[in-house]
């Protein structure tokens, strides 16, 4: 993978860091000159993935969330969001729209559906007791290029 630029950062699994993660990723992505809609899509997908780490990965515990964002050739954005939490036993079930294990927190069960809709590619890898890694890619439009 040829990497044109990259940022890596770690945040504690505090809900206030959902907006921190969005802000850092947005400010990095801006160099690729995304459209307003593309930037909104990426911010939303990041917010969903980070929230999943906090609500599901580290439920009732705490830990760190590792975030890597890469700018790849041909205006492609690569984002990896990783936790060392409880992991997902059945990824297929977890990715079904409206499925949630946290209804008491009013989770809508749409997190993965939103990531899939707003990004071009979504990969979820998880091991029970080890954690979950979400990888997303999106090609930015070539307006003005």
């Amino acid at each position, binding site marked *: 993978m040829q990497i044109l630029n990259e940022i890596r950062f770690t945040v504690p699994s505090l809900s206030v860091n959902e907006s921190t993660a969005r802000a850092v990723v947005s400010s990095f992505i801006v160099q690729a000159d995304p459209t307003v809609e593309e930037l909104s899509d990426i911010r939303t997908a990041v917010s969903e993935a980070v929230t999943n780490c906090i609500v599901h990965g580290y439920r009732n515990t705490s830990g760190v969330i590792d975030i890597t964002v890469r700018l790849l050739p041909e205006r492609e954005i690569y984002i990896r969001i990783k936790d060392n939490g409880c992991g997902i036993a059945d990824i297929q079930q977890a990715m079904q729209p409206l499925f949630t294990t946290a209804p008491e927190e*009013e989770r809508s069960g749409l997190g993965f559906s939103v990531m899939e809709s707003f990004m071009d590619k979504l990969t979820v890898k998880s091991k029970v007791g080890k954690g979950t890694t979400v990888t997303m890619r999106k090609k930015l439009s070539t307006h003005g290029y």
Partner: protein
Amino acid sequence: MKVNIKSENGTAIAVLSGEIDHHTAKMLRAELDKFVITMQPDILAIDLSGITFMDSSGIGLIIGRYKLIKECGGRLEIRSPQPYIRRMLKISGIERIVKII
């Protein structure tokens, strides 16, 4: 994140501004529920015109308020979402149960 609620002739309009995510939804949920339970409005209208970001936590927030106001004998409306927010509402299918104006 700010919420400003005004009530007139049985309709409560909650004007939200800022960003809705899992973190801010907790505060919004508490504010809106306190008002609905105390005032029991016929209609709760959530005005999203000032919302600059919303992820699926906003959908959970809306569904929760829909259930609460229904239990109290009222109904929920969503008003003035920006195009990006409208897209999120569409993905959720919430427009089948809540009127979006």
